């Protein structure tokens, strides 16, 4: 169970602490490219759909070949993107640090994950689930539109970067 799961049962008792936590969460969310164009009101609405998850060291956020369902934004801690779920044969592809995100393609379809994500430190993440984003399209189309636009820009940037890399490799060859 997440650390503050039981606290949530006693709604209101930790009001002051929750309020400041909410502010810092919203500030964090504002730094994410998906949400930078959202107003504070829209951000608050969207925050209702985000799932706060805490991972211990060496705990997987997701594993390779599992169907993808959520985007993870790292608030604290560190996550390693690895090629396998087997720690002996795994090759580290990238390190994701606070303020960065991973698994964004899961917001578009449920194709299997292309790599595993392993917490290398105790990590706090905010997850946005594909189903919730699809629901937002109906209930809050302006918010959903901003998120999808940002997602399209990110995927486009990555495609350009990949093309540049391929070009460099070809030149070198």
């Amino acid at each position, binding site marked *: 169970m997440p650390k503050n799961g039981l606290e949530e049962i006693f709604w209101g008792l930790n009001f002051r602490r929750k309020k400041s936590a909410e502010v810092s969460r919203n500030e964090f969310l504002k730094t994410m490219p998906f949400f930078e164009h959202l107003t504070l009101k829209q951000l608050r609405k969207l925050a209702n*759909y985000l*799932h706060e998850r805490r991972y211990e060291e*060496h705990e*997987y956020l997701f594993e390779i070949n599992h169907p993808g369902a959520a985007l993870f934004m790292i608030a604290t801690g560190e996550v390693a993107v690895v090629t396998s779920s087997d720690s002996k044969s795994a090759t580290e592809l990238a390190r994701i640090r606070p303020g960065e995100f991973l698994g964004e393609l899961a917001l578009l379809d449920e194709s299997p994950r292309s790599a595993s994500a392993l917490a290398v430190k105790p990590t706090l993440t905010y997850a946005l689930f594909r*189903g919730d984003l699809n629901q937002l399209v*109906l*209930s809050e189309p302006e918010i959903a539109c901003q998120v999808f636009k940002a997602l399209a820009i990110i995927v486009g940037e990555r495609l350009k970067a990949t093309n540049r890399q391929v070009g460099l490799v070809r030149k070198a060859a």
Partner: protein
Amino acid sequence: MRDPERRRRAMLVNTITIILAVGITVYLIWALKELILPFVLGILLAYLFRPLRSAFKYRWLPNGIRVVFLFTLLTSGILIGIKFIKNNIPNDKEKLEILVRLKYKFNEKFNSMMGFDQATGKGNAMFNLISQDLSPLKNSINGYLELSPDQQEAFLEFRDGVEGFEPVSEKYYQYFLINTKKVEQPKREPAKTAVVAATIPNTAKEKSVLKTAMGILSIWFLLPIVFVFFLLDDGIIGQFFIRLVPNRYFELVLTVKDEVDQAIGKYLRGISMECGLVFISMTAGLYVVGIGLKMAILIGILAGLATAIPFLGPVVGLSFGLTHALIVEEINPLLPFVSMDNLPVAVFFAIGIVLALDNIVFQPIVLGGAVNLHPLIVIIGIMAASMMFGMAGVLLAIPSIVIIKVIIQHTFGGLKDYRII
């Protein structure tokens, strides 16, 4: 990775928490079982109305006002429906009149079909051919429609005049005489006898009914509250429960929850729309063949509600429609070829067309993408649920079967996809 000692402690705390939570939940369900029906119905209605909430989305219209508007719409609809049905439920006098009219009209139609002449005791060719075979059936229907001595006494008292009731019309009294083969009797002085008194609720009875009604009202007060809160909810309630899920099953649970959510929503909305379409087409069909608008709406409502249970909608429409066609005294058909003589046939065809429309058009369109439930499962499920939980079971059987089916279907698929099994 957590050290073994910490993991052992965490497991102990989790186990105790789960046992306590299950124990408290079971106790609460048992102790508050009367609240379950309004609570669950409130959630289901919120499900039904959720797409409407999005439909009324305007920048200037706050969420709360949208929900209040939908709540008012729902409450008004329910109240108008209840009032309409209540006003059209026959009272004690009308119940007796219906039995008298039914028996009279049944025999009249039977005799006219057989060309039966009372004086000679002879009939047409059909009479000679099948009257002996049909005789036991006719007698058993007559026996079923026969008024008991107490009911006959009460009918006569209503004819003489009982406070609070219109006297029985002369025409129905003549039917009664023919049914019972009695000689016409002069009107007696109006008097409340034990027979009529027994059929009319007394003050004590009214008080206890009022007390029960107040109790039910206070319980049902929960329904609109649950409805409003679930309709206002922007995912907070679901999020709280998702927090309790271990990280390993997080994405799986989200996926299954989403699929179950969609399947239930589609099914409930589909079945509600089908019921509504059956109501509209049944009302229109009966009105076209000459049944009065008020009665057509009443039969349409009953048949529409019964459509939620497979096969029951047409059966309800047919039995009420034919019964009414048999006793109706005057019709105003929009179709020129419908007359009093062929009204039952016309009603039969009208309901047949509604049934065909339901099977060929309504179901494939409105229930096309929804969960497919085998009619046998639904019927057995409803019977079992009614035996276990009474009326609450009947109302909640279909949504429960849908939820169980969808959860089993998607959970096993998900567990395999995530390589947990």
